[in-house]
């Protein structure tokens, strides 16, 4: 190795003294190399932290980052930081357009949309409960070749099922006819072909007897419908009183007697009573008991 003695004069005339050399060597040994000189400008950092550019020409160290935490950028000149929450096994990270994201449970009402394919529907192992008490289900159209209204390829019925799985409504342009119960007005109008007759309202139909009875000459009832009593006011003179009245005295009553020698005839009537007289065939002006009386009445019920 060749040594030289200071000062040293370079060919361009500049002089390097011993003092200059001592200063440079000390700086290299005890100081840092700044970012512009290819260094970091750092002599240490925070344990668990990371270095970051605090300016265009300087690095700095962040605070310690929580174990397993997600790292959030700090923006220009600011240190990155850890997301405060680690979340739980039942939460997911929700984005935030203007701030830090957060962990939260999935809200089905606001977080989920789109159509769930039938193949992706999970198997149910318990009861479905709904706060509103109803679950609307729309059936898909049946494929070509189906017959009858339920298999219609042009009609989409809607079935509404309540929380207990009961069908509470079924609507369709063609299928509703068989499932909706007729009202009293519809039964009395007797014209609808899109509602169904139910046992509790059958008697409102104009073609159905509103009351009937069978009784003997003493007025003792053997069988009856909508009948409260028979009143005997004389031989061959009985009054039949019904439960629910007709809407007026204009109703049709028919009566026959179980005795070949008598004929029954009807007297002017009230909405809830019908006087029936029995006369002998040979004595038409004299009332005569019939062995057994039969009567039925038709009309509009109140």
């Amino acid at each position, binding site marked *: 190795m060749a040594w030289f003695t200071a000062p040293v004069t370079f060919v361009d005339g500049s002089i390097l003294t011993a003092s200059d050399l001592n200063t440079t060597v000390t700086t290299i040994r005890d100081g840092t190399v700044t970012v512009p000189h290819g260094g970091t400008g750092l002599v240490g950092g925070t344990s668990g932290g990371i270095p970051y550019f605090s300016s265009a020409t300087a690095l700095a160290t962040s605070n310690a980052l929580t174990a397993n935490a997600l790292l959030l950028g700090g923006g220009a000149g600011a240190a990155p930081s850890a997301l405060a929450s680690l979340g739980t096994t039942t939460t997911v990270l929700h984005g935030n357009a203007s701030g830090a994201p957060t962990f939260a449970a999935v809200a089905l009402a606001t977080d989920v949309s789109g159509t769930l394919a039938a193949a992706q529907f999970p198997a149910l192992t318990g009861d479905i409960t709904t706060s509103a008490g109803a679950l609307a289900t729309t059936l898909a159209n049946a494929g070509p070749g189906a017959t009858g209204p339920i298999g219609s390829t042009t009609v989409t019925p809607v079935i509404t099922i309540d929380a207990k799985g009961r069908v509470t409504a079924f609507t369709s342009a063609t299928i509703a006819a068989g499932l909706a119960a007729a009202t009293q007005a519809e039964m009395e109008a007797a014209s609808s072909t899109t509602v169904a007759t139910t046992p509790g309202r059958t008697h409102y139909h104009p073609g159905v007897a509103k009351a009937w009875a069978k009784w003997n000459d003493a007025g003792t009832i053997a069988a009856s419908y909508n009948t*409260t*009593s028979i*009143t005997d006011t004389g031989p061959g003179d009985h009054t039949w009183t019904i*439960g629910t009245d007709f809407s007026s005295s204009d109703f049709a009553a028919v009566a026959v007697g179980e005795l070949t020698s008598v004929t029954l005839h009807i007297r002017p*009537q009230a909405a809830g009573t019908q006087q029936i007289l029995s006369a002998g065939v040979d004595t038409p002006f004299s009332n005569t008991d019939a062995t057994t009386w039969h009567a039925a009445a038709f009309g509009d019920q109140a």
Partner: protein
Amino acid sequence: MSHCACFTLPDGTVGIVRPNPVLVVALLAPTVADAMAFLDHRKQGLAATVVTPLYRAMVARTEQEAVRVVAERDARRLALARGLLPDDAAALTVMEATGLLAPDASRRWRNCWRRAGAGAPAVDMPLARAQRMSEVRRERTARLAASDSAIMTAHEQNDRARTTALTAYRQTLRDLPATTRPTVEACTTPAQLEAWQPTWPVDPTA
């Protein structure tokens, strides 16, 4: 059902209401809901709007009370239907049905049943005798009419014997109500009156 209800109309006519026996049994149920269930089971077609007021009107849960409330309702409706006032179906009394028919089981004198106040109906014998005499006169008139052609023929044929016989026969017929009245008046019970028959003269042409 062993009871019925009896009432009296202004003309003295006796009415007897026989309630629907199934309704009477239903009204004895512990609750009106039970009553309706029973009526529905027996297919009576009686609405709750009809049954409930009757059930609530009962002061005791007995058959007599059930008969009373049904009979009061229907007797009033009968009176209104006949152009009377509701209370014209007066003196309504619940009584044993069997005893009711005892005086006139055959109902031969049903038109003559009358009541004293709220008592049981009985056959009014003067009325019954009048009814029987009316029947005799109606029969007498028919027999006279049947002999009209015979006496005319006898006159035309100048058959004096036949004319005389027919004239006597017809006069006996005309007198029959008067001649038989004492025997009718002697009948003091419905059974005696039902058994009584007039002695009809013999038709000379028979």
